[in-house]
């Protein structure tokens, strides 16, 4: 505890850096994955192609990806860009699959009703499909957020300061409190982002809130899916990392 108090300033600074570096891959991953997931969902041919590709990308261990990216992209070996790009790749890998699953979870009857009411396919996507796919998308995004925060710690090996610094530095100097603090704060930031996303989801998708959902059984389904989604991801793309 005394170590934490004595180093509070550094811990706060690293936490803020960690949070800042985590946000970009999460947001970028989400934005890139939506069209990708849509293409994967829409066409049978691209589905296999895209999902296999993102599956393979997700298979690559993080440290290896950090090292392989610079010669591929022409970036310096020890730079923030490599880690941010690598984490974005992982985020896209998780999110593209989630998006395809999410769009597949939309009831076709509702889509047909929307089409019958005169919605163009473009408008239907934004007004009907995307909101109804929201709960599954959110579940995927929460997985992305949590795993990004956790993976970012490995970046310290290739010279990107994050809470991972508390691990390596603490281990080298034999300060248990430093490593423990690093683990605890990393988990706290992950849980914080997870909570924020959950609240954001409840605010944006009021129909998923508990209590209201039971009124109409059809609409209640997406909220059940949120609970199940983590296990789903586990069957496909969860897992790599470290």
């Amino acid at each position: 505890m005394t170590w934490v108090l004595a180093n509070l300033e550094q811990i706060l600074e690293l936490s803020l850096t960690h949070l800042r570096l985590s946000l970009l891959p999460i947001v970028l991953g989400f934005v890139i994955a939506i069209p990708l997931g849509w293409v994967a969902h829409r066409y049978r041919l691209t589905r296999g192609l895209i999902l296999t590709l993102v599956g393979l990308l997700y298979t690559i261990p993080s440290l290896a990806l950090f090292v392989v990216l610079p010669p591929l992209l022409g970036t310096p070996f020890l730079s923030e860009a490599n880690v941010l790009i690598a984490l974005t790749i992982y985020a896209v890998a998780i999110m593209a699959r989630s998006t395809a699953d999410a769009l597949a979870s939309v009831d076709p009857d509702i889509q047909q009703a929307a089409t019958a009411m005169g919605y163009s396919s473009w408008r239907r996507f934004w007004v009907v499909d995307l909101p109804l796919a929201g709960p599954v998308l959110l579940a995927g995004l929460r997985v992305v957020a949590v795993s990004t925060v956790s993976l970012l710690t490995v970046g310290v090996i290739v010279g990107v300061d994050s809470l991972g610094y508390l691990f390596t530095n603490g281990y080298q100097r034999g300060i248990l409190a430093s490593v423990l603090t690093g683990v605890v704060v990393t988990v706290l930031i992950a849980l914080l982002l997870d909570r924020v996303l959950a609240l954001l989801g409840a605010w944006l998708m009021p129909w998923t809130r508990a209590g209201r959902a039971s009124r109409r059984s059809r609409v209640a389904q997406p909220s059940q899916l949120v609970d199940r989604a983590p296990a789903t991801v586990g069957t496909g793309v969860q897992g790599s990392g470290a």
Partner: protein
Amino acid sequence: MNLFLDAFAWIAAPEQWSGSGSLPQRLGEHLLYTVIAVGVAALIAVPIGWLIGHTGRGREFAVGLSGAARALPSFGLLFLFVMLVGVTLRGPIVIAVLVLLAIPPILAGAYAGFEVIDRRTIDAARAMGMTEGQILWRVEVPLGLPLLFGGLRSATLQVVATAVLAVFVGLGGLGYGIVQGIAVRQFDQMLGSALLIIALALLLDAVFALLERFAVPRGVRAGRTPIVRSASPRRRAVAEPSA
């Protein structure tokens, strides 16, 4: 691309293939950690996952555990455990951390494999007079196998990736080349090691992909249905979507 040629040259160089610290030795260490960790984790997680899946009790526990495990930084856990227990026991400790990381995905796979089975299949088995044991071994286990292999696949990838970091606590594995390469700025070694790690991960992934495919009992596709879709019973009854 020059750097990649250098990396391949480094891999092909004869000095990497014999003596202590050679690539076959590093690869062997890496595989050994992986096999032991995933094996031990499977012995622990599969029976528990099947129990949860069969009885339907403890579902929240399985889902919560796999969610919570994702938040834990494995890199930090490695250091934390070695420091807590002491450097002398670091071999078993690293294995223990890898086991801990492998348990949640295997548990989720074992349990989800049972969860996706159409309830009517199990009801039919029971109506035919099968005992609980028969239902478990002849219906649920075979039908749940593809997702179980999926869980083992996730766990293996997680373990292979984390074993790369084992070098930081003084153990070998393929991560050695990367970390040493960074320290002495030897890019061919860094890149060569990274490429080998990627090849290993992709190879193991391919093995499990094949296992998953062959684990589907003949005439059955239900095991490959994503759980997301199985949540809508009506649509499942109409058409089983191909995964």
